[in-house]
């Protein structure tokens, strides 16, 4: 399988405190890669490094390389990087003063990526891909905050998809949701892998097992083990991985 993203010797510090140590990881294309590990192990920090979100925090320092199709994203324009590598957050963050339509269109609009006439098509396509179109097609002008939390999360996925990214990063995308919404999002993620490379950070091992093709286990800022999901869960090579998946550390 082709590698979409390759992380080489990645280190991240906040002020003087190091939170990511020498991470190396090859994320395969058009597959779902899960990153699991106990809370505080650095999995979210790793994910945000792939979207260059640490650029915004003066205290954060990133060293190492993140290659997208062989090119280091830290040597490119961060705006272009973020458009190619979309990010979905733990809690849905719809823009509160905007309608459903505007929420999906805003990224395209502010990046000057499409003419006005095409916006409607883009919005419809993105909402369809996010499995939300049927529910909102008649209320596109309603405020986004009127949607349920589960719908809001699919809306933010649609908003990211509207930019036609190549990679989707998801930071515990279902942890704020009820079980029904969670199931919907999981189905959605599985459907999306035909077109996108997806990295999901999750603290829910069963979710990783259900939806991902590959799994990386992180512990104390390091990647301990990376393998095909079924292999990693059935046959962990490291003792600490086994301890984690059997629930002896958390």
């Amino acid at each position: 399988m082709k590698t979409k993203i390759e992380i080489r010797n990645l280190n991240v510090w906040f002020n003087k405190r190091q939170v990511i140590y020498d991470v190396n990881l090859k994320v395969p294309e058009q597959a779902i890669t899960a990153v699991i590990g106990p809370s505080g192990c650095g999995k979210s920090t790793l994910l945000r490094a792939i979207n260059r979100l640490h650029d915004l925090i003066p205290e954060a320092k990133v060293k190492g390389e993140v290659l997208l199709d062989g090119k280091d994203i830290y040597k490119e324009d961060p705006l272009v990087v973020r458009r190619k590598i979309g990010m979905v957050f733990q809690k849905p963050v719809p823009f509160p003063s905007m309608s459903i339509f505007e929420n999906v269109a805003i990224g395209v609009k502010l990046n000057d990526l499409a003419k006005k006439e095409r916006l409607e098509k883009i919005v419809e396509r993105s909402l369809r891909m996010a499995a939300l179109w049927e529910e909102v097609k008649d209320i596109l002008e309603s405020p986004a905050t009127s949607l349920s939390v589960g719908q809001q999360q699919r809306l933010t996925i649609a908003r990211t998809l509207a930019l036609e990214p190549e990679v989707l990063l998801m930071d515990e995308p279902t942890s704020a949701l009820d079980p029904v919404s969670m199931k919907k999002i999981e189905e959605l993620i599985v459907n999306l892998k035909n077109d996108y490379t997806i990295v999901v950070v999750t603290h829910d091992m069963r979710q990783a097992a259900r939806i991902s093709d590959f799994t990386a286990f992180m512990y104390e800022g390091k990647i301990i083990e990376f393998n095909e999901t079924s292999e990693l869960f059935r046959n962990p090579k490291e003792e600490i991985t086994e301890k984690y998946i059997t629930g002896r550390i958390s």
Partner: protein
Amino acid sequence: MISLRVKKKVQNTFLFLFAFLSTIIAIIPLFSIIFEVIKNGIEAINLDFFIQLPGPLGESIGGIANAIQGTLILVTLASIIGVPIGVITGIYLYEYGKEKKSTLISFSVDLLYDLPSIVVGIFVYITVVSPMRSFSALAGALALAIVMIPIIAKTTEESLTLVPPTISEAGIALGIPKWKNIVFIVLNSAKNGVLNGIVLAVARITGETAPLIMTCLGSNFWFSGMDKPINSLTLLIWRYAMQPYPSAVKKAWGAAFLLLLVALALNLLVKSGGERK
């Protein structure tokens, strides 16, 4: 034992009475002002009041139309100058205000906010009225704009600070350039608060008198150019209130009625809008 219980009871009663009476004492002036302004103001109000010039002092005919016109012109012009500067200053304070190099600017905005408004009037008199050798509508509007800028800057900054950081982050994650993210995502999310701040600043300058005295002076005639003196509701109240003619005093109350109506309406508008949010 009993005396202790009595003492405690007396203390509690005293405390309650103190709090209760304080509240009553503060509410009485509010109602007294509203009551007196309505009672005396309503007598002054008729059609002429809204469409006629004041006429010579002491005559019972005429109205305050030029003062209404003047206040509208002054407030509009001041807002055209003051609102954009205030909002952009607020954005600057929000985005860069915490950095060391901008300490001086955020400090100046604070001091400008504290400035007695009559000092602003003196400043505009020296820098605009004196060189132009004429009191003018322009000078009045400039003085009001200066009063407005720090108010709007601070409310804008505050409203922006209240937007959750996750919103700004979500915008950045979409690859939106930083400045567009501030203006179209963060500012947009804070627009209720920013608008409230603008409305409050407009209400405030509508009621300003002191900085107008030495800038636009007041006038008995219609607006006749930006470089000429102009009347305002507040100047008319101030000048007419202490005249010995009952007809002038009546016009002052009428103008106060109108002004109070606008001030209270704008403030209540903001309060009810704040709750819907």
